[in-house]
């Protein structure tokens, strides 16, 4: 192949150089167009003001046992549920092989704080806010397409593919958490 193209060069002086210049110009042009277009697309991504709101602190002491509150984190609702011992026992009694998205109850709470369940309050199907204390499993029921979650927020029935998402959070003190 090398000899063939060398022959072509002898017949057409500078053809190799000219081809190289064509390809190089086109390549530089393509990179340039890409570099110019990328900011036009990237502006659609979450901006600095949105990212600045990415963490929230919350005092758990205001949530009475057996009740839950909905707070806002990154513009989305988050459930904070103060569970009763009965709810925790119920969640822990479920064998893992009965679950669509197997996860132990322990893996969904922080150690030593099993009574507090913190979850993004958006159904993992298409993002509606599930209704609390509803459904066959004593947890949540999504009004949009009928997904049902148990007292650990795990998917038990309906179209949602996965459990309600536990956001990244940590205990700053015994009663204060920081989400995000």
């Amino acid at each position: 192949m090398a000899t063939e193209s060398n022959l072509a060069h002898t017949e057409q002086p500078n053809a190799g150089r000219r081809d190289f210049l064509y390809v190089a110009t086109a390549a530089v042009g393509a990179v340039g167009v890409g570099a110019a277009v990328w900011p036009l697309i990237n502006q659609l991504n979450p901006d600095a003001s949105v990212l600045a709101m990415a963490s929230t602190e919350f005092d758990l002491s205001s949530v009475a046992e057996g009740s839950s509150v909905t707070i806002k984190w990154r513009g989305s609702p988050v459930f904070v549920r103060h569970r009763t011992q009965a709810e925790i026992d119920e969640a822990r009694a479920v064998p893992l092989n009965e679950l669509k998205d197997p996860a132990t109850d322990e893996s969904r709470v922080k150690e030593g704080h099993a009574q507090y369940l913190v979850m993004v309050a958006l159904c993992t199907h298409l993002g509606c806010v599930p209704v609390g204390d509803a459904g066959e499993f004593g947890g949540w029921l999504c009004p949009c397409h009928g997904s049902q979650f148990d007292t650990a927020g795990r998917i038990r029935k309906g179209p949602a593919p996965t459990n309600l998402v536990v956001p990244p959070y940590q205990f700053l003190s015994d009663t204060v958490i920081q989400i995000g």
Partner: protein
Amino acid sequence: MSAHESNYNPTNPVEKWLDERLPLVRFAKATIIDFPTPKNLNYWWTGGAILTFMLAVQIVTGIILAMHYTPHISMAFDSVEHIRRDVNGGRMIQATHAVGASMFFLAVYLHIFRGLYFGSYKAPREILWILGVIIFVLMMGTAFFGYVLPWGQMSFWAAQVITNIFAAIPIVGEPILHLLRGGFAVDNPTLNRFFSLHYLLPFIIAAVVGLHIWALHVPGNNNPIGVEVKSNRDTVPFHPFYTMKDLFAIVVFCIPFAWFVFFAPDILGHPDNYIEANPLVTPPHIVPEWYFLPFYAILRAIDFNFILDSKLLGVIAFGGSIVILFFLPWLDTHKVRSGTFRPTFKWFYWVFVANFVLLTWYGAQAADMKIIGGLTVADTSKLSVAYYFGYFLIILPLLSRFEKPKPLPNSISESVLKHAPATN
């Protein structure tokens, strides 16, 4: 048929001068006035004119609404109320735009089902059909973006659910979701960009409509018997025969349109959309506007895992139900175009229409509503989804091979004369 001679002979010097530089009048005369059109077109062939009229109505009312609307989450809802209560004539203009969306979809569905029955998608009109499907998809996008703008509860949750569909895509789903919303949740950036796109898309639609009409003018119209034009005995000039017929159809179409605007401007919407958007509470029963219900029912019917998970499968079925239309010209390859001469096809076609109406109804019901015995909407709608896809993927290809058509008339003029009353 496309190779007709122009008989435009400008006599006055101004027209001659223009004709030599930009033959605009010549083009208009050839395409709008002299265009040879099959003489047997029935009222189903007025859909194009009605749709062009509706696009113009939506663009004009939309531009006016944009002069009074504020695309910000704290003001959008109130600005729509401001339009309805304070702006001079705003109630009518807003109602015309909102009802207009429904009427636009009513007309487009009739237009599409006309094409499905009379085989208007078959060679040599495949490109014409594909451009039509592209317009339909653009219309769906435009309607969705527009529905979000009043920022009521239904607006917000429609935006939430529809953008979430993209999260079903493996791996890149989440980044795409954030890119679409401009945040981690539907919020002000989302509303802003939807407003921008809602303003843009109608003009893209207008451009594709231009291509659609161009692609129509190359092979010429299909017609109710599906036999191509063979001589000029089969055609009449577009003007005045079809300009008048189209105008009459537009007038008739405006009667129900006006009834909705004047007497029931909100009847096609949902009361929940008069509650301002609240990201913390989903309304108890969310459903899309009526014109999206069949596709919504398809999305919702897939609630089981099969190799892939149910969410992704639902989205594939939802997208596939529209994408399949692009391939229709190659799924139905039967030589005869018009359903009138296809005795077996006809049955399956009308079942398809009834099934589509049924899917619309399913889409409006709660998924766990009981139908017969222990069967719920979620169960029985699966049958309808199966028929929807079966019609395109199994029935039409099989009919293409095995169906025996009825004898076709030799020409359009022969078929017209056969039905004409005897005269001296």
